[in-house]
């Protein structure tokens, strides 16, 4: 294997994996129909019949006819049409040694346990107890997995209000209903109301956004979920053709807006900006501070950013005060200091 990760897919291996789930399913659900079975095991009726065809050729190593697993394939085929009988009942016998499903792989065990831990973090008090019970049983079942499950802690930083907001937006997407948003626009420090046609909820850099057609802007817009103060799903159907939500893997912003290239100087307490916002370049500031602190990365840095809205930048600089300043363009630095001066004056007036 050249790379770590999954080995190359093998049709036979996948088929065996399907059979190791299919046979126990049929064992615990006697007299089940073909179409129901296909749905339950996440397959198609055609594939289920093909897989059963393989099973038909398997059995105990004795080589006697009685040793083979018995599958009633005739019940699933339509002799007249040559097709499948979806309502045909699947009967498998002589396969008791495969009655139990294969234990969970380490990845399966870890994935489901971490998912449940995340649910525990956001569940309301009365359902948290249910999640705990399910989690305890699965952790016990996974204890037999060799190597155990991975140590993974999903955290609990989503609150249940945020989880509910997301669910109602996704419900609106699925039912193609319009949503009335009360949205906070930080650049203007304003709540705005608008009706949108929701397209989907997407995540980039750990932040969730609603992608929607905004009827106020008459354009597609991204709305940060943590800035949506209210969302009412309306009875009215969306007016624009549904589109899949956009792919944010290449960054959040298209460069079509009119932007200004701004250079900021950030002291260490303001350095989080580099990771939180999209920046064009980062340079250590030369000639100041001790060489050793520059080498450790603890000195000031200059960053270049493309800024579409000056009011947004001004609020960011005020938030960072006094650990940031504008290197260029200089008039923006003056605007920042004037704002700080005006703010300071508000306190002088009531002294």
């Amino acid at each position, binding site marked *: 294997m050249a790379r770590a990760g999954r080995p190359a897919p093998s049709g036979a291996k996948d088929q065996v994996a399907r059979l190791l789930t299919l046979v126990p399913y049929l064992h615990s659900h006697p007299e089940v129909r073909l179409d129901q079975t296909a749905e339950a095991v996440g397959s198609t009726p055609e594939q289920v019949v093909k897989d059963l065809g393989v099973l038909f050729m398997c059995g105990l190593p004795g080589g006697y006819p009685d040793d083979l697993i018995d599958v009633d394939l005739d019940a699933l085929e339509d002799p007249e049409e040559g097709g499948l009988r979806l309502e045909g009942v699947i009967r498998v016998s002589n396969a008791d040694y495969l009655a139990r499903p294969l234990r969970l792989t380490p990845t399966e065990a870890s994935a*489901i346990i971490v998912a449940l831990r995340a649910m525990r973090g956001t569940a309301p008090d009365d359902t948290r107890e*249910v999640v705990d019970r399910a989690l305890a049983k699965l952790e016990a079942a996974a204890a037999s997995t060799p190597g155990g499950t991975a140590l993974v802690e999903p955290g609990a930083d989503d609150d249940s209000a945020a989880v*509910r907001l997301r669910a109602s937006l996704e419900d609106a997407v699925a039912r193609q209903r319009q949503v009335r948003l009360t949205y906070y626009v930080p650049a203007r420090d304003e709540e705005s109301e608008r009706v949108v046609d929701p397209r989907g909820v997407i995540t980039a850099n750990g932040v969730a956004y609603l992608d929607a057609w905004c009827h106020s802007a008459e354009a597609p817009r991204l709305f940060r979920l943590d800035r949506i*103060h209210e969302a009412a799903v309306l009875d009215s159907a969306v007016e624009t053709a549904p589109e899949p939500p956009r792919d944010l893997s290449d960054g959040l912003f298209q460069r079509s807006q009119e932007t200004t290239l701004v250079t900021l100087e950030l002291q260490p307490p303001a350095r989080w900006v*580099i990771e939180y916002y999209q920046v064009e370049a980062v340079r250590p500031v030369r000639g100041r501070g001790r060489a050793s602190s520059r080498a450790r990365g603890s000195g000031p*840095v200059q960053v270049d950013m493309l800024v579409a809205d000056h009011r947004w930048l001004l609020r960011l600089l005020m938030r960072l005060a006094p650990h940031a300043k504008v290197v260029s363009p200089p008039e923006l630095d003056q605007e920042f200091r004037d704002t700080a001066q005006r703010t300071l004056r508000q306190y002088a007036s009531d002294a």
Partner: protein
Amino acid sequence: MDDDTGAPAPAGGASRKSERLLNLLIMLLVQRHYVSKERIRAILYPDSRPDAFEKMFERDKEELRSLGVPIEVGSIDPLFDDEPGYRISPDQFALPDVRLTADEAAVVGLATRVWEHARLADATTDAVRKLTAAGVEVDVSALDLVEPRLSADEPAFDVFWDATQARQEVEFDYQRPGFEKPSRRHLQPWGVVRHAGRWYVLGLDTDRNEERVFRLSRVVGEATRVGAPGAYEIPDGVDLRETTRRLAPTQVVVEATLLLRKGAGATLRRAASSVANDVPGPDSDSPWDRVVVRADRLADDLLALGPDVVVEAPEGLREELLARLRATVGAA
């Protein structure tokens, strides 16, 4: 979807191979004792030449093991341990009995919707299918519970997840903000934690021989697993929750009394415990309201509002804001 030689499989080739794999599995599962290679060859690979048999048998074993089938190797005759035998213990093979109540089964069904990461979403679904196959009836309609979402878009996430599970050292380039270049690091990962929507890995930094936490979004390029799996033990008492607590800034919730310009500070107003409208303010450009709010880390949010907010109390918050504003103005 063909054989792993890369060549197209002849018609029926894949299903013949499936039959062979499944028959091998059944043969090893139903025997009480180790089965010799000779017997396996005679029954399941009767037409193959010795070297072809060795190759096929090795590959078949590996494929079954990669599905999670525990094939044990042991000695058939304790006195002559030169001939290995093979078996699958039914207890090791099968999922232990899991009995879920209806509400627990509903919770488990919802878990399939949590991961926004294709591989782990599939793994969760596969796990639930196995439980369903064991007779657990999963029903997602009955519960008043909305599932959270776990995304993991950091490219290094899979490597660290797998390495944590395999106990395998990872080599990667790490970019700390403000440094000119990324630096090459080596870590024995102990666990992966999520905080504020981002993933971190905790482990032993083998270059420094110290415990370290790395943020996965700062890993540059491809992280690679190096060294053998199972190369180290995770120390007792590693507490991932404690790690997330260290990542989280300590909360300092204060109750503050603010003068807010009419129309400003919508987010603060939503969190307010009381609002008194139209009170005297520091300027007469607009009406002002007095707002009482309890919140964590107010200073940054208040500074962002500029001259539209004035802190009346507490004194400590007021002093912090004034000091930061004076430093900004004085630095000109």
